[in-house]
């Protein structure tokens, strides 16, 4: 019987290996043909021009800016939410809040995107000018999207802090707030970082919601209210029509994204090990 379980377990391992193989076999030759530096640091993306330009620096920066904005919003709100839920929230309210946050995690990303397109984009356009499709809009939307991820991990890690920390702080004369923020939260810092890293992973990999609100301009953004294209939306936008080297370049973009995600996952498991061991 064990062999059945073993085969089941192998499925996911095989899936990862196959995806890796597909990405690298298709992506690396394209990257080599374009030139690694030209590809990673090129400022122009003009795949249908002759000669074509395949520089993904605008997309890398777009992904980084939007993710950074999302983290700024998501972490500040998420961290306080987690602290509230773990240490301040009366049981009755907790019963109400927790399901709401879980529902937030379950909303499909295309629904987030559509909400962003219909509500956030006109709002940003009317208040801040421009077209409304911008880094700011995308960050705002992603910031909300990653809330459940951050809240979940941070709350769990605060709850995992041994009660002695809190009691010790109280015994030394600290108030409830002080004990939570200066004794428990530092003790849970690995968990907090793990939550943030996981949030980054979610934000950088998000596609559907971003594609609808970010504007998708393949140029280096110079302002918060300018549009930007992320690595993921760059792939999705053009995959359907791409041929030859263009297609290779998109898969190579996938390789870059994959490497980003790998780094994020390793960082996450490092901090997670520290937080819950």
């Amino acid at each position, binding site marked *: 019987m064990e062999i059945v379980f073993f085969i089941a377990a192998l499925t996911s391992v095989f899936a990862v290996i196959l995806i890796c193989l597909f990405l690298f076999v298709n992506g690396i030759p394209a990257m080599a043909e374009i030139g690694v530096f030209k590809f990673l640091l090129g400022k122009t993306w003009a795949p*249908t021009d002759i000669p074509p330009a395949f520089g993904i620096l605008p997309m890398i920066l777009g992904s980084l800016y939007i993710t950074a904005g999302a983290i700024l919003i998501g972490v500040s709100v998420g961290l306080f939410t987690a602290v509230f839920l773990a240490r301040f929230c009366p049981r009755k309210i907790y019963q109400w809040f927790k399901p709401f946050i879980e529902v937030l995690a379950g909303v499909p990303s295309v629904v987030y995107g559509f909400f962003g*397109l219909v509500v956030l984009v006109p709002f940003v356009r009317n208040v801040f000018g421009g*077209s409304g499709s911008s880094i700011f809009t995308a960050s705002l939307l992603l910031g909300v999207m990653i809330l459940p991820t951050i809240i979940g991990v941070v709350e769990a890690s605060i709850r995992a802090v041994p009660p002695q920390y809190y009691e010790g702080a109280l015994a030394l004369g600290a108030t409830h707030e002080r004990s939570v923020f200066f004794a428990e939260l530092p003790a849970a810092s690995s968990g907090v970082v793990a939550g943030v890293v996981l949030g980054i992973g979610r934000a950088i990999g998000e596609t559907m919601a971003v594609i609808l609100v970010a*504007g998708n301009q393949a140029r280096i953004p110079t302002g918060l209210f300018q549009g930007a294209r992320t690595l993921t939306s760059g792939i999705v936008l053009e995959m359907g029509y791409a*041929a030859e080297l263009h297609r290779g370049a998109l898969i190579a973009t996938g390789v870059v994204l994959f490497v980003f995600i790998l780094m994020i996952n390793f960082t996450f498991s490092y901090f997670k090990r520290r937080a819950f061991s």
Partner: protein
Amino acid sequence: MNIKYLGIGLIAFSALFMGCDKEEEKGKSNEKPVAAFNMNREISVITREAGSGTRDAFIEIAGLLEKTETSKRDLTTQDAITIDGTQAVMSNVSGNEYAIGYISLGSLNSSTKALKIEGVPVSSETVKDGGYRISRPFNFVTKGKESPLVLDFIGFVMSADGQKIAQTNGYIAITEGEAYTPSKISGKIVIAGSSSVAPLAEKLKEAYIQINPHVEIELQINDSSAGILSAKEGTSDIGLASRDLKESELAEVKGLTIAKDGIAVIINHKNPVDNITLEQLRGIYSGAIKNWGAVLEK
């Protein structure tokens, strides 16, 4: 404790509702079109993704393609919002007063306003007679070794009956054609390709199956490149393409134009502009013209 949080929640919620009220009032005042439309606001230029057949056709006709013998450059401004898909372009334009976009004529509906180009409104008549300047071909792509069934289907499409279907669906017929005479034929045809051609292919399929009930037609919708590739590789009998074939593709497959399609330039209903010259269109899409005022003055 309990009451404290409930209180905070209540205040937060009422603040939210007050915000909503204000928003509604704003919405009402926006309904007066002339007063609300600010001519000095930046134009939100909307384009399709690189490689899209609609974009290829549009940039070529609007003069946004800088072409020499060895090079080709798309001059579309990098500030243009890039959107994949006709429906998404339409919903963006219908939601943004300052937007301009372009879509296939067959997809045009009342949610947006189509601009006249050089004074000529877009319609199948004006595309066919050449008065309307922005149009593109719809191609059937085959490998050159068609079965009798596929030939019969193509014969139907190019017949008077087939061309009439194209025309009634807002596309432009390519030939007069003769009446189609059905032969007792059966089998299966696989058609794959451009989502721009697919709505027409679907209608042609329905009509053909009604005449030849023993024929089965499978329609797979993806895009022009995939359609041409599937015809080349033999995974489909007919590939659909909404652009001219590239030379590298023509070496292995052949194309047949079955109809023409106009590209409509669309803006929001609140926008008072209703005519544009190709020159101005080029200016907007290359980033030289930044606001609507510059378009209306001329």
